[in-house]
């Protein structure tokens, strides 16, 4: 008597997901390989054009760079904060700040950086008065390097959040055992610390890669689409800013999904390799 109601709710959730999440994706795939005249690979092959190819290259560069910066800096910060000797207030401040900053993406983040190191930003002017001309040195907030700096603002805290439980799980006794056997700090990390953390670091990198790869708002607000990223190119097609067929937008979207699936598959394979020793133990 109760079960039918339960199945109604379960069915509704699966149905809504099928109609509004899966069906649009399938439509995209169909749209990317068809037009008025029937099936065609024309639009997927169009992705080889310089404009779209470069957008994929930019997106990949930005995602790899900001994910790598995020993983390294985030892990170092989390490790420093989690040392038992670190003051407790510092630990709590970093934890709560990370929760905020990881969610502080998009337009407000872009404007905060424009006000700071934009071409008329306060820090830019301040540095100029002491003789450091950032923009004269070739830096621009509106370049891939600039975007990487901005993305780091939400990537690093995101990494701090994801890696904290893994670092907490490192047992001090492992370190003591290694030291008793004569290992230096470096040797401990090389043979014990990093191999144990590897799967978590990898999972964190994938999460960061995905969040940078699909980010649109920050890049749009900063560059107004001047630097082609895949997301901004899709948006340009959708809003009719450029004279290209809607199929191009669909082909670009399918390309993004393919990249995400490949990255995810690679990481699953690597994680399995990296954690093989767990089963042996």
């Amino acid at each position, binding site marked *: 008597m109760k079960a039918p109601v339960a199945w109604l709710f379960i069915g509704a959730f699966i149905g809504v997901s099928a109609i509004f999440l899966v069906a649009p994706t399938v439509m995209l795939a169909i749209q990317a390989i068809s037009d008025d005249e029937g099936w065609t690979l024309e639009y997927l092959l169009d992705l080889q054009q310089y404009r779209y190819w470069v957008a994929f290259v930019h997106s990949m560069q930005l995602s790899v760079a900001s994910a790598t910066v995020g993983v390294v800096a985030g892990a170092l910060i989390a490790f420093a*904060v989690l040392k038992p000797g670190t003051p407790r207030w510092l630990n709590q401040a970093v934890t709560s700040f990370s929760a905020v900053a990881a969610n502080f993406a998009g337009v407000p983040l872009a404007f905060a950086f424009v006000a700071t190191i934009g071409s008329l930003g306060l820090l830019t002017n301040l540095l100029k008065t002491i003789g450091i001309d950032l923009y004269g040195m070739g830096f621009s907030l509106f370049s891939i390097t600039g975007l990487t700096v901005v993305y780091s603002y939400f990537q690093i805290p995101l990494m701090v959040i994801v890696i904290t439980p893994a670092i907490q799980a490192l047992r001090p006794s492992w370190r003591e055992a290694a030291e008793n056997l004569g290992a230096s700090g470096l040797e401990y990390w090389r043979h014990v610390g990093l191999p144990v953390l590897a799967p978590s670091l990898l999972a964190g990198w994938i999460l960061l890669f995905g969040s940078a790869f699909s980010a649109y708002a920050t890049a749009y607000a900063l560059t107004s689409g001047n630097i082609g990223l895949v997301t901004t190119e899709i948006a340009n097609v959708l809003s009719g800013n450029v004279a290209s067929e809607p199929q191009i937008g669909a082909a670009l979207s399918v390309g993004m999904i393919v990249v995400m699936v490949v990255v995810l598959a690679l990481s699953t394979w690597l994680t399995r390799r990296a954690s093989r020793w767990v089963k042996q133990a």
Partner: protein
Amino acid sequence: MSNRLGLGGWVILGLAFAFFALPLGMSAAFSFWEGGDRYGFAAYRWLAASPALGEALWLSVRLALATVAALVVLLVPAMIFMNLYAPKLRPLFEFIAALPFVIPAIALVAGLTELFSGEQWGWLKETPFFLVIPYFFLALPYVYRALDVGLQALDLTTLTEAGQSLGADMGQIIGLVVLPSLRSALVGSTLLTLAVVIGEFTFANVLLFRTYAVFINQIGQHEATAAAALSFASFIATWVAMLIVLVAGSRKQGGR
């Protein structure tokens, strides 16, 4: 090897502090700039006098509340019933909850636009509440994770059987036992959804609705100081929301 924060640790934390504090401090300072050497509240006065800000914020708040309502009606009961009656469906639920990560927001917009491209769907695309569909999936991975952790911590079967043997029906068990136990997961995911939806830009900008984030972007093109003021205010607002989540989470631990 010491457990204390050495020189290296302090250098790392010092650099991190500079990197994270500068843009905040600078945008706060920039928001008080009135041109030349003058500083004051001009940007804030301009914002207070702008009716468009109120409209945009109100639209975002309504969309956020509608998204929370959709999650409460569609996701929460489905997850509870799946755990109770159909644990075999768990892999399917996990798969659905992971999909929004693989399908970038902009691709979902493209797909929804294509799916509802016909004339007969005009009414749907004219109302801003069309955005609730993509927002539901935007929040889905976070909310699913939070609820899943909450549900795993409960022994649903035992709770249900205990309730039934005391004569409660399913509605009473869910309303009086299960939902209160999920309180901190529900509060956390509600606030996260509010923060995510109010800050969301991609869908609204492409589908041409003037939400809060779209509004900030528009004024940023000509009123840079006002945009800095709103950016700073957004950060503070998000921080307050997160503090509430943290407090709600720790209160639950204290109550055990």
